[in-house]
């Protein structure tokens, strides 16, 4: 499933959008070490941690899109860094549980279709 499709269906706000890409996995977590140890490479990452280190973790795990939940504020510095590293950033008012559930069902439906 394309990230553009997810953005539209979950009504995510685009903060940085550099390129569309395919999404097959997701991971939800706010602990950096947990995400690094357990997220599948190239997942979409759902978190409330909006700081420069989130970008570093995304780079290590080849995560191309991060969704910041609970409407957390995103500092300009992070936006610049994400643009530089070509990582998509999205924001939503919804909490991590809700967004994860929505995306999970979409990915499941996609798998069944195939």
């Amino acid at each position, binding site marked *: 499933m394309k990230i553009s499709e997810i953005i539209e269906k979950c009504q995510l706000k685009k903060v940085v959008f550099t390129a569309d890409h395919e999404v097959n996995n997701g991971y939800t977590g*706010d602990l950096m*070490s947990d995400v690094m140890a357990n997220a599948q490479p190239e997942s979409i990452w759902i978190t409330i941690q909006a700081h420069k280190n989130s970008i570093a973790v995304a*780079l290590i795990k080849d995560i191309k899109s991060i969704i910041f939940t609970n409407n957390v504020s995103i500092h300009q510095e992070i936006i610049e860094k994400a643009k530089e590293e070509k990582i998509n950033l999205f924001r939503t008012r919804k909490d991590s549980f809700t967004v994860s559930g929505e995306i999970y069902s979409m990915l499941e439906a996609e798998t069944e279709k195939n």
Partner: protein
Amino acid sequence: MKTSYSKEKVSLVNELIYEIKIKETMTKKFIFFGKNATFREIQLKLKEKKISGVPILDTHKNIIGIISTDDVITAFDKNYINENIENYMTQEVITVPQNFSIISAIQKFEKYEVGRLPVTEFLHSKTIVGIITLSDILNKLLQVTQSIAGKIENEELKNTEISADFIKNTPKKFFRFEGSGDDFNCAGKVASITKKYFKGLGIDRDIVRRIAIICYEAEMNICIHSIGGIITIEVDDENNAIVCAHDKGPGIPDIDLALTPGYTTASEKVRALGFGAGMGLPNIKNFADKFEIRSSLKSGTHLKAIINLGVKNENK
């Protein structure tokens, strides 16, 4: 249309023509006419779409005939081009069912010397669901062989064992980074530079990721817990990446306890940023092939993680 097929043995294509179904190869949006059409209408359509024949269907999409370019030329010749096709069309139409392999279509192209075949829903059915031509088949074969080639290439990349010579021939690089305590801004720099370097060498992506995670956790440990330290990364003669992190203190009083997942001494401020979950050292240990740590309250902590660059670590 007469097409000659090379009798040379092309084993992959030979296999594929028996495997690939007509259903996935045929054109589903096709042009057809009803029995009330005239030769003139069909001739114009054939010209417009550059095709060599159209099936004639009834209202339930059942096939009742076919008109080819030859039929149109005959109609010109015999001067009935403006007439209705019904009495002239070929009524015995060769079709092929969609659940057959493309080999059956190829055989029929050869046997009946045609270039296109209407495809039926199933054997003995008259309902037409598509049209298959030789170019549909060639395109499909090209597409499938390309995707197979792509997959093989990926597999090969994955299985590449980096030879000792290869590592020897690359300039031996020795990275050295200094980190000070509480400096979160440059944390991630070591991991990112190291990742780019090893990726550039063509090392397996999983291995590169493991090295990057180890570097990142080591960096964060220096930032969070120490009063400053250095990280060095080098490649030894046995294809191992060696990540060393030395800090100036204060040292870990109980290393076993520090290696327990979940144990942490990090401050509230650090934890609010998503660090200090007590997973750093356990992560380093898990992602390394070999791991050594010693620490004293006098000289600080010395950590060494060894990651083999050639062989994929299956457990991770």
